């Protein structure tokens, strides 16, 4: 075993963690830091429920050993995104479109939606499907989720004009 100490910018704040290098980022977030918004579903990278942004890129936190994230890494979880104006617009759009049923996949969906809209403020349906392809939902059938991302994109475009 090897313990590592890492200082990251987590949801905008400096956070220092000490953990076995092989501990999964997901376990550090949920169990050590109490950030339970990121969900564990499959535990093997397929479902996207544990998606977080690492230096602006969506990654599944169940496949990242924390030792691989050096000091200074910027991590944004659903808790951090929910505090951002754009994050709230996306959440509201999900609610209004009825895109949420059991809700377990939604934190990951919102993180992937946020990552997409940061990069591509006017995504095509194809681009939305691509961006969310790594997030599985067993309830909704995706149609309303895609509508929600479109609605959020429209609202965000109005705000920045």
């Amino acid at each position, binding site marked *: *075993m090897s313990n590592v100490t890492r200082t990251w910018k987590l949801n905008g704040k400096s956070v220092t963690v000490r953990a076995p290098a092989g501990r999964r980022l997901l376990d550090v977030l949920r169990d050590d830091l109490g950030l339970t918004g990121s969900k564990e579903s499959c535990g093997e*990278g397929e479902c996207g429920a544990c998606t977080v942004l690492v230096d602006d890129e969506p990654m*599944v936190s169940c*496949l*990242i*050993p924390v030792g*691989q994230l050096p000091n200074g890494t910027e991590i944004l979880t659903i808790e951090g995104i929910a505090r951002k104006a754009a994050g709230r617009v996306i959440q509201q759009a999900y609610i209004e479109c009825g895109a949420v049923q059991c809700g377990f996949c939604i934190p990951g969906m919102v993180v992937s939606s946020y990552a997409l809209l940061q990069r591509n403020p006017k995504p095509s349906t194809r681009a939305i499907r691509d961006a969310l*392809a*790594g997030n599985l939902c067993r309830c909704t059938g995706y149609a309303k989720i895609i509508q929600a991302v479109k609605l959020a994109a429209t609202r965000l475009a109005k705000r920045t004009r």
Partner: protein
Amino acid sequence: MKNIEKIAFQFPTTLAAALRLQANEKTRGKLLAGGTDLMVQWASGVPTPERVTSLWNLPEISAIRVLADHVEIGAGVTHAFLVDCQPLRTHVPALVAAAGTVGAKQIQARGTLGGNVANASPAGDTAPALLVTDGTVVLASQAGEREVSLSQFWTGYRQIAARPDEIIVAFRLPKRGKARERFRKIGTRRAQAISKVMAASRIRVEKGVIVSAAIALGSVAPTPVRLTQVEQFLAGKKLTPALIAEAEKLAQTTVQPIADIRSTAEYRRWASGRLVRDALEHL
């Protein structure tokens, strides 16, 4: 404590330091890049190693260089980085297309080209696209660097021609020049699905005649394979519908796929021919 938490991790910050660790059996670790293959295996009960040598973010293996007649892609380059690299779309478009079909965005952000190649799955998406370039794998150890042709790199099911002290550092891939490339993956759904069959091709046609043809398939044999017989059959011939039909048949008779959880042998054989047809119809 989970098994992965018991692993001793080493985080070399230079390639030289990583090679030093790998040179000595007492410090050698299982190489770990983006972990999208290994972390899954360890989570599903595959025994964990005592030591790991992390290659994630190692600068010397994380760059893309565009040179006069070839491109050099670092083994640590992620699929996401590769997909975003405009010059690669011009010079090795099939590889860019292949990288874009690995898993989904979250997997592409972590999975590396070196990891996909070293994992040596016959279903590795980038393998056929690499094979049709006639490129090489650059291996490094403390003894120095050597190059191995990609066509000789996968030596058997999940076997590669690298020594335990070696690290894949890069791939040297001749540019396509005037040839056309195509990549097609057939899977159960478009994302997050391992292929049933896939094909990459690099074919050059001049004045209606096939000057050179490189066609590779994945998921039809223990390793990714080039369709040498089909390639030889095509070379020098006029591209006609009749020729395409013959090439399709030849492909179907030369492959020896197996049946497994993802598909049947019959379907794979049929689809292999259709993919060859598809490549020839898009020239």
